[in-house]
């Protein structure tokens, strides 16, 4: 052991040391946010432009296809989006084809936006249908017959009795879909709604799709944005922070960005150190 110099030691650091440093580095910025500036990427900008184009009374679908476990990356973008829909005077239909714990996510969104939900009336300004299994088959059915999947909302009110749903029974009167997902749910809407057989009543075009994806899927999701299948893409908490900057609603993503910056710098430093130590010890062994 005495033969070990600092570089040897560095190469064999117990990984738990890193874990502690990482966990602390991720947590502390929440106590005193730094607030580094963020440049807005084009995909987030066009997402925001899409939200801004909502006219009063137009109906938007929020499809929550991410679970509570992905809140860190997914929740802030949803909150900012709902807030913006409210600002624009739009109406909101909410459901999930992804996760059973969506009730908790929706409750959290409502909890985080007290000023919105104290004014919005359930059934008139928004309606919440909850979770339904069935994935893509389900989305295909929803395009033409919402009542077949959701005969009533979560409160148990028959869909026919909900004022917001009066003339709506499919994709044809929906302006666009905002899909928050950890997987491929946005693809279902692109295939079944956007490229499907429905025609949007006002413009004669089918509803478009925008996505709030997780950062991990950024490159895959980016392909859909670049090919024009999605009109906007918010990628992970970074994208959400950009959206928060645009909408002016400062939420968790903006604060998370400091955590992200600190932890990324930490990781890069660790990688640099391990490389230096590797080269230092390699030279010696020769």
């Amino acid at each position, binding site marked *: 052991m005495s033969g070990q110099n600092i570089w040897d030691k560095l190469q064999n650091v117990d*990984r738990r040391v890193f874990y502690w440093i990482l966990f602390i580095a991720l947590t502390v910025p929440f106590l005193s946010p730094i607030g580094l500036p963020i440049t807005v990427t084009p995909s987030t900008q066009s997402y925001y432009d899409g939200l801004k184009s909502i006219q009063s009374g137009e109906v938007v679908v929020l499809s929550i296809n991410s679970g509570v*476990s992905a809140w860190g990356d997914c929740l802030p973008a949803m909150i900012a989006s709902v807030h913006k829909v409210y600002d624009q005077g739009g109406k909101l239909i909410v459901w999930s084809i992804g996760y059973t714990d969506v009730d908790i996510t929706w409750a959290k969104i409502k909890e985080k936006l007290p000023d919105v939900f104290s004014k919005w009336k359930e059934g008139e300004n928004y309606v919440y249908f909850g979770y339904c299994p069935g994935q893509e088959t389900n989305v295909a059915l929803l395009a033409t017959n919402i009542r077949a999947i959701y005969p009533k909302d979560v409160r148990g009110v028959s869909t026919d009795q909900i004022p917001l749903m009066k003339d709506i029974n499919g994709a044809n009167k929906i302006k666009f879909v905002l899909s928050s997902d950890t997987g491929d749910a946005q693809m279902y809407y692109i295939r079944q709604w956007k490229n499907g057989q429905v025609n949007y009543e006002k413009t004669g075009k089918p509803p478009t799709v925008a996505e709030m994806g997780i950062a*991990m*899927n950024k490159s*895959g999701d980016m392909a859909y944005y670049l090919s024009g299948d999605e009109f906007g893409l918010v990628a992970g908490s970074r994208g959400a922070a950009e959206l928060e900057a645009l909408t002016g609603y400062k939420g968790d993503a903006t604060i998370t960005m400091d955590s992200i910056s600190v932890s990324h710098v930490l990781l890069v430093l660790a990688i640099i150190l391990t490389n230096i130590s590797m080269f230092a010890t390699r030279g010696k062994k020769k």
Partner: protein
Amino acid sequence: MGVWIILDTKFVALLLLIAAFALFYAYMALAKGGMKIKARTFPAVAAIPEAIGRAAEMGRPVYYSTGMGQGTLNNQLNGPQTLAGISILGYTTRLCAKSGVKITYFTMIADSLPLVEETMRTAYMAEGKPEEFDPAVAINFQNEQSPYLTASLGWIQREKPASSILMGGFYYEAVCIGEAGNTIGAMQIGGSANTHQLPFLVATCDYTLIMEELYAASAEISGNLDVIGSLRGEDILKFFVLILLGLGFILALVNNNSLISLLKV
């Protein structure tokens, strides 16, 4: 009527499928008839006996998992990967039975249990030790990814397996199980056709089967000439892809999109 053959943009796909099956069949027949086809050796497959041998020497068990696989065999992206993982599980179990190594299989795919149990039982029977097979070595975690991961992590630290083999449709558990195995110094072999987990399998495992190699591995293990023949069929398809890419590239340079419109038929 009379238009039922119109496949709306799927015509080329159907042709490709028919051509692929014809090629697989033809090369399997040719290989059976004596044509010499040798599959490239995969280091990951060659390492499996070594991994089992290591476990036998150390007197420790082997961890095996086919990943989350979306919780069911009935998933078009992950079901085939799970099946491929079970193929390799059969081979691994047989090696374990031979050298008296304990193997524990973790899964969260409840509906694969009958298949897994029969595969493992057959492997023990093939080694003439049916009485050593214990159905409780296949542990299922109820279509829930996180409990399956928690239990895997706990088990790895408690039992300290000598080797850990991860083959199938993995999701985020790949990097966790991989790193947990690394901590205890297990020899690790990975394999998946889920592109998003490949970086982590490559980073944490000693050997990795990437995409197609996962499917091809069991063909190589089997050593059946006709099965290996189907791999040559795949290669012919790859040449076809390469030709299309080259041709398309040249046509793109002269701004001709006839190939693209042909493919979009």
